[in-house]
């Protein structure tokens, strides 16, 4: 009897440590669960802390929202692998604790220095799969960081605006998901340039999606 009670207590404690007590995730997340959102936010700010050479932090750059949308776009099998990766890295510290007396907690409950120490361990591990897991996580979060127009503007790498000429193909294909009636162009719209177009103007305006919002901070 006593051993079963002990086993039950340990299992119950483990379940509480894994599944209970996550902070409420930001509104608007559809795919990420509470624990996943907490992990992604913690990892995003550990990888991209506030300030420094590119000021926005991972969370300020909207990485959790980006990952949430990205999960929605990838095939189910890939989505499962990404979720497994988040779960693994979130809870690995319950078995291999972070430095310090409070290190025996899931990743998102650690303080910043502990998170950095844990990620550093993954990044420099001699065990290739562990290193690969870190590289995969960093790849997903980095792509999310660079999806933020503010980050690209700060780096001077935001795409430019330029006119897209109309070609014969634009008379054939509707936008994805639409029927042929949605084709907007007619034969007379087809561009017939008399000279090669000029190279991109680096002093020209940015693509509308990447322009500074009106009233943004300087």
């Amino acid at each position: 009897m006593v051993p079963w009670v002990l086993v039950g207590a340990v299992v119950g404690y483990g379940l509480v440590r894994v599944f209970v007590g996550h902070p409420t995730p930001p509104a608007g997340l559809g795919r990420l669960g509470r624990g996943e959102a907490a992990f992604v936010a913690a990892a995003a700010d550990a990888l991209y802390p506030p300030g420094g050479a590119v000021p926005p932090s991972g969370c300020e750059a909207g990485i959790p929202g980006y990952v949430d949308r990205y999960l929605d776009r990838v095939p189910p099998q890939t989505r499962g692998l990404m979720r497994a990766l988040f779960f693994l890295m979130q809870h690995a510290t319950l078995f291999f604790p972070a430095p310090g007396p409070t290190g025996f907690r899931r990743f998102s409950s650690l303080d910043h220095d502990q998170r950095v120490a844990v990620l550093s361990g993954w990044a420099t591990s001699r065990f290739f799969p562990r290193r690969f897991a870190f590289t995969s996580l960093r790849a997903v979060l980095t792509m999310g960081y660079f999806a933020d127009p503010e980050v690209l503007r700060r780096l001077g790498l935001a795409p430019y605006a330029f006119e897209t000429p109309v070609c014969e193909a634009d008379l054939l294909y509707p936008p994805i998901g639409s029927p042929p009636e949605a084709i907007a162009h007619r034969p007379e719209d087809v561009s017939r340039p008399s000279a090669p177009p000029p190279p991109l103007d680096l002093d020209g305006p940015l693509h509308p999606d990447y322009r500074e919002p009106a009233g943004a901070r300087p």
Partner: protein
Amino acid sequence: MSAAGSGEVRVFAQYDRDFTEQADVVVVGSGPCGSVVAKELACAGRDVVLLEEGPPFTPADFVLDGATSMARTMREGGLRATRGTVMPTMQAIALGGGSLVNSAICARAPDFVLDDWCERFSLEATTRRDLDPHYDAVEKFLGIAPTPDAVQGQRNLLFRDGCDALGWSSEPIARNVRGCRGSGECFTGCRARAKQSMDVSYVPAAIRAGARVLTSLQVQRVLSDGRRVTGVEGQVVAPFRGSPSHRFRVDARCVVLAAGCMATPVILQKSDDLANGSGQVGENLQFHPGVSIMGVFPDPVSPQFGATQGYQSLQFIRDGFKLETLWAPPGVLATRLPGFGHALKHTLAEIPRAAVWDAIASTHRSLGRVRARRGSMDPALTWHLHPEDVPILRHALAVIAEIFFAAGAEKIVPGVHGLPEVMHDRDEARVLGSGSYGGKALTFASTHAFCTTRMHGDPRQGVVDELGRSHDVENLYITDTGTYPRCTSVNPMFTGMALAHRTALHLAERL
């Protein structure tokens, strides 16, 4: 021969029931090879149906964010990887195939590669002399030309300067482009409509000539009646999500598989292991693993301007690698930068002064296989980097480092685990070539895949002959990079199109 019909393109929104089509020829896959076959046969008056699993993309459908773009234009969300040696690889799913999202490099296979193919694989008519007329035809149609200086941008010209300083050859890359503005957006779809990807070149020409282009159709089986193929069947799939709806069948006198090196073997395996008397379907998988280095210069480089890949060097092609310049969406490039936290941010802030140069390696000893998965048309890929091929990659990294420092870089970020994250001079970088690090220390990827339905003069050792004709089954042809008996050592698209052109002329005569 049937009269060619009236050309059309059909999209997902138009399918509302199961259907059957008839044609002289059904071509599976609208990438560079399939599009050439469809256009040439339609122009020869044959009734052609061209099938594509992906949708046509309009400029309004392009997304500039790299990862989102990959998730929309690539199979498996752009996150496909091999097992064995884990290596990211990709295959496009869009009208035009990979040409929609590649950097438009058009390189003829070197003479020594074609000679090697002929010698080792009992081929008699695949020499330079045999293929040049086909290369010429494709080159003329697409307006392939060397990248002009006006759109090279600093990061490409610095590569040239570095090679010049070392006395190594280099040249502007020939591309299928008309009116490039140097936006560096090849990988997310050309907003300038300059790249002559198949969806804006060969496919419209095929439609003009009467071909029917049916998109959002996933071919699952080749139908056969004894030793003759009779058509293909499959299902309508929704763009991006791939959710199935109606069934379709195309009855045809001839089937041309051009679904790509990683998909064609799966279709054959799912067709009761069709055309596999040799046992070579899905075997011999080869890649061009690519390694790259970011170099930081003292002055701004403005790397976002310039042809995506504008310069190359064939100086070391016989040593097993080709050198190129490279640009990609910044988020994709940044995934390979080392470290995290403020150190990583500091490195990111240096990208405006940086260039990225890469090498693609001919790793003939590194082989793998493609296998069908149960319940999916996605392939299971296994591939192993052979230890004897690792020195090629080490050599390539050492050479790229040399070029960077010769071009005036103040430091490089090589991305090799266990070595310094940043190197400041040639002496420090020497370890890249002389070190004993293994494949797992390297970060590499490949978008060039080959050999899974290889051509061979001996039917016991290959799947198709030099014309792409199946050794086992009548009226079945394969024309994609799977038919290459070995990798090309250079970017494979142009050679695939030349071989497809040859196959098309043969079929036009025969049908």
